[in-house]
């Protein structure tokens, strides 16, 4: 657990990656005797992680990690051999996903034309990578970032973009409708991509999507493939509470109606395209990919 917190402090690492890395460490130090016991311990570890940081990405990353390492049948009679195989695969998985952000960046930056005005929401490392790639390609564009209360992550994003010498403006969350007519495209990150092809992201994404649909602006989502999760919310209410609120709030507060949710759900009908390391997908293709990943 301490390992996780330590890795977390590195600002460049996604929370899911940190989770997976710590799970790998846990696996290395693990002492169980049977494969079943191993799995149980891993699941327990994932639950512990979810309790400290209740984000969709941690849960999806954890589940995918577990599936990936135990995907094929482990027929070695010796448990330590099995463990070694699993650890190897775990490292492989980790390597793959650390490269995924780069892949997404490469795919997406071609969609940014010269002179484009981009709107984005809150702070996302993937979007940052995309804009970095585009800037490195000598494209000129301006970015509008929403403040994204209650944690003002937008300001952080603006700072990072400034460091890249990209002209950036911070707008109020309430000014999304006002600014929509000026922008050419909207790019947001995702905390989780659900089975229907919709995304779960910082609160305020949904209204941005609705606005962009009304103005006929393309709405792009960038996400790595380990964020695919097996949820299927029908509407905002259907998203489980454990993702909506921070973990410490869940534990201490009695009446959740008084709290502000941290995430919302954007249905697939409002999303134009999803950029993932598996390629550029339409929302209906997400289910296809999920079936391939999980089945």
């Amino acid at each position, binding site marked *: 657990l301490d390992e996780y917190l330590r890795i977390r402090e590195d600002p460049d690492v996604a929370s899911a990656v940190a989770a997976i890395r710590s799970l790998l460490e846990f696996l290395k130090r693990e002492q169980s005797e049977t494969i079943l016991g191993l799995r149980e311990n891993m699941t327990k570890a994932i639950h512990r992680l979810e309790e400290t940081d209740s984000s969709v990405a941690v849960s999806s990353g954890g589940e995918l990690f577990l599936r990936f390492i135990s995907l094929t049948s482990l027929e070695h009679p010796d448990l330590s051999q099995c463990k070694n195989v699993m650890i190897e695969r775990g490292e492989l998985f980790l390597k793959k996903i650390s490269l995924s952000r780069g892949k997404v960046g490469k795919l997406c930056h071609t969609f940014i034309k010269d002179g484009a005005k981009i709107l984005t929401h809150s702070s996302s490392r993937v979007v940052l990578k995309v804009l970095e790639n585009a800037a490195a390609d000598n494209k000129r564009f301006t970015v509008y970032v929403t403040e994204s209360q209650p944690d003002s992550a937008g300001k952080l994003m603006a700072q990072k973009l400034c460091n890249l010498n990209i002209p950036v403006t911070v707008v109020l969350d309430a000014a999304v409708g006002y600014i929509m007519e000026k922008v050419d495209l909207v790019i947001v990150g995702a905390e989780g991509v659900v089975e229907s092809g919709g995304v779960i992201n910082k609160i305020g994404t949904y209204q941005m999507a609705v606005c962009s649909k009304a103005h006929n602006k393309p709405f792009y989502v960038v996400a790595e493939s380990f964020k695919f999760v097996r949820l299927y919310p*029908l509407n905002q209410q259907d998203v489980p509470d454990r993702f909506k609120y921070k973990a410490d709030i869940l534990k201490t507060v009695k009446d959740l109606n008084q709290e502000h949710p941290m995430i919302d759900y954007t249905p697939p009908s409002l999303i134009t395209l999803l950029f993932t390391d598996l390629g550029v997908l339409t929302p209906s293709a997400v289910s296809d990919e999920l079936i391939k990943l999980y089945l």
Partner: protein
Amino acid sequence: MADSDGRQVDSINHSTGKICKELTKEEKQRLRKEKKQHKKNKKDDRGPPEKEKEKEKASVLAPSKPATQSPAHKAAPVPVNASASESPVAAEKPAKSKAEQRAERRARQDTERASKQGKKEGGQQSASSKPKATPNELQPVVKRLPEHIQVDDPAALKKLAKKLERQQVRQINIVPLRSDYGYKVSLFSHLHQYSRKNPPTQQISIPATVIHPSIVRLGLQYSQGIIAGSNARSVALLHAFKQVIQDYSTPPNEELSRDLVNKLSPYISFLSQCRPLSASMGNAIKHIKKEISNIPSQCKEEEAKRRLQECIDSYINEKIILASEAISKYAIEKISDGDVILVYGCSSLVNHILCEAFEKQRKFRVIVVDSRPRLEGREALRRLVKKGIRCTYVLISALSYILPEVSKVFLGAHALLANGYVMSRVGTSQIALVAKAYNVPVLVCCETYKFCERVQTDSFVSNELDDPDDLIVTRNGKTHLENWQTVKSLGLLNLVYDVTPPDFVDLVITDLGMIPCTSVPVVLRVKNVDQ
């Protein structure tokens, strides 16, 4: 353009003064007795051994009835009662003959008859249509429309008759051609329209050796609407096939795997004449045929039969019973306390889900929407109220009144098409449309064995026309439509199915999990890879 063709004069007495009402149980029994009498008379011409064979088959039917009753119990109480009323009729005939001798004699007579009656003359019209869900396995080069939706083209029918005459050399194929009834609306003149008062068995006689009696019984049950509902029809079909396989014996110099498949074809044509095959039935038949042809040739007959019976049992168990358990598991996650759920008509799967959810102590109430002329919602209402679920009952015309109260809509499906369209009872697409307008999530529940490779974007090209007389109703002693045949410009249209586009459906719950409507071809692809 096809008006004059579509209109046919019905020779059988459709008594003009008679009001068409649902056949009561006594009438059904009478019909069945008539049919058996009819067959018996024909049997007397052919000699005693046939009659005793028939008795023996009847006795085999009687013990198998308890077996059919328990799974058919899921379908509706009506078919159970119907078959129960039939068993005393069948048991009247004493049957103590030895099965083996009969089988041998039967087999001998089969081969004799096959060689003797080489080409059956056109006296008995033996044109039959093969409405397979994927019709063009025979003509791989040219994609043609399936024959059952080319009813208005006399050339196509003649071609079919000729093709079957050619097939007569190998097998007896006396499958009756039901004549269409009444004036068909021109947009649907390419579909069959039969009257329930003319069951296919009344017009001609079907000797038991050509079509197995349990298949005849099944066909009658389909055409009279005694067995209705996609799952019920498939289960009944599979049970009838089990009976057929039980009574089947390989003729000499023939292989079971090839001969049995050929034997099944006229049965299937007969059933499709009684009522067009559903997608679920089509898939079940495909599965069985594949299993039969996979039987190794050195397998003994008893062993092969046993294997096939097991295979059918496991198919029913996996694809229907266990699938519904899995679907309820997923669906219950989507039902939260305080929900108001809307259901339409009677879907065995949706009823099962709601009953399970109620047992798991979810607090919800149900609104049952119903529509004429079938009024299937009453059956669903009966089942739910018996469980103790709070229900409201409305007709479909009150839909927009009641929708603001609703939090979720659960629909059953007859089939899911390869382009994501949902084919279901007529009225479903209306409900999905209005629910979308009110932003109410629409969930469709469907087992994977109902997924079919067909593609359809509208409800016209392939549908089913039910008996138009069902639309005639008597209120306050007055029947306004009873003389509708005499009015030349009047047509009654009683559609059975319609298709819902995937944009209106939010979620499809299958035994593989919850998928969006656009992922149906993915599931089909995965299934094909598995096979």
